[in-house]
């Protein structure tokens, strides 16, 4: 590996630790506001969550740690998002989210190291059914 590792012991200690569940009650107003924000006029989204609504169900416990952890890289970008839909999320549902950091990868870049943080989220409804499985990669540089 080129250069020093930016992956601290503190960051490593978060690997594969499950955070949550964090609970969101899905109100009609939330769906409407989200559909308006993404400028998608499909009337279906007044009752059911549009595909990227999982972005609004933030796993704060994990992300707060990942984004604020004391490492030399301060700038943050979203790298990729991956969603698998098993059941629709509907108005009135109560969604519980668990999340974990699954992998860390440091690569050398022109302006210094870049760190990729791979996360996985599971979204479960009030009947215990997994509705969405999500993966997201965050980049610190």
């Amino acid at each position: 590996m080129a250069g020093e590792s930016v992956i601290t012991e503190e960051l490593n200690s978060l690997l594969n630790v499950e955070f949550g569940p964090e609970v969101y009650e899905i109100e009609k107003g939330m769906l409407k506001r989200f559909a308006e924000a993404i400028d998608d006029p499909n009337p279906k989204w007044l009752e059911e969550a549009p595909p990227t609504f999982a972005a609004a169900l933030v796993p704060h416990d994990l992300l707060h740690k990942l984004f604020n952890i004391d490492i030399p890289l301060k700038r943050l970008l979203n790298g990729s998002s991956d969603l698998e839909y098993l059941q629709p999320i509907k108005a009135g549902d109560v969604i519980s989210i668990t999340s974990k950091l699954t992998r860390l990868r440091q690569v050398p870049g022109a302006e210094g190291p870049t760190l990729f943080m791979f996360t996985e989220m599971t979204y479960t409804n009030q009947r215990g059914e997994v509705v969405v499985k999500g993966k997201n990669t965050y980049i610190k540089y």
Partner: protein
Amino acid sequence: MAQVYYEDIAEGTEIPALVKYPTTMQLVKYAGASGDFYQIHYDKDFAQANGLPGVIVHGWLTLSFLGQMVTDWLGEKGRLLKLNGSYRGMNKVHEDIICNGKVTKKYEEDGKNLARVEIWAENPQGEKTVTGTAIVALPSKV
């Protein structure tokens, strides 16, 4: 738009493009609706201090546009099973985001009629800013 059926598509079928023109106001609305208040998406000074050309569009918002393109195409009877996107470049505000998609595979699995759709968003310079795939289930005429 008429309902699309499994029998209507083939490898190489292009799905109708969708063009969006996000403004700073839309990014603020998206920040509020999603809870993503990272300042690079609405504070120009902050964005520039972070080495960015200016306010940039949330990757998730561009992926939402791609999602709309796919669900508009799927209509009432189609179903989106998977959606993913890699954020490769930046979309700036007050610029067109051109969303495109093309069927790359058509297959049957577990009694379902599925298609894999390559999706991508471009900026006005023709650079692909988000690339990904959607896996969809389509209704059959038979």
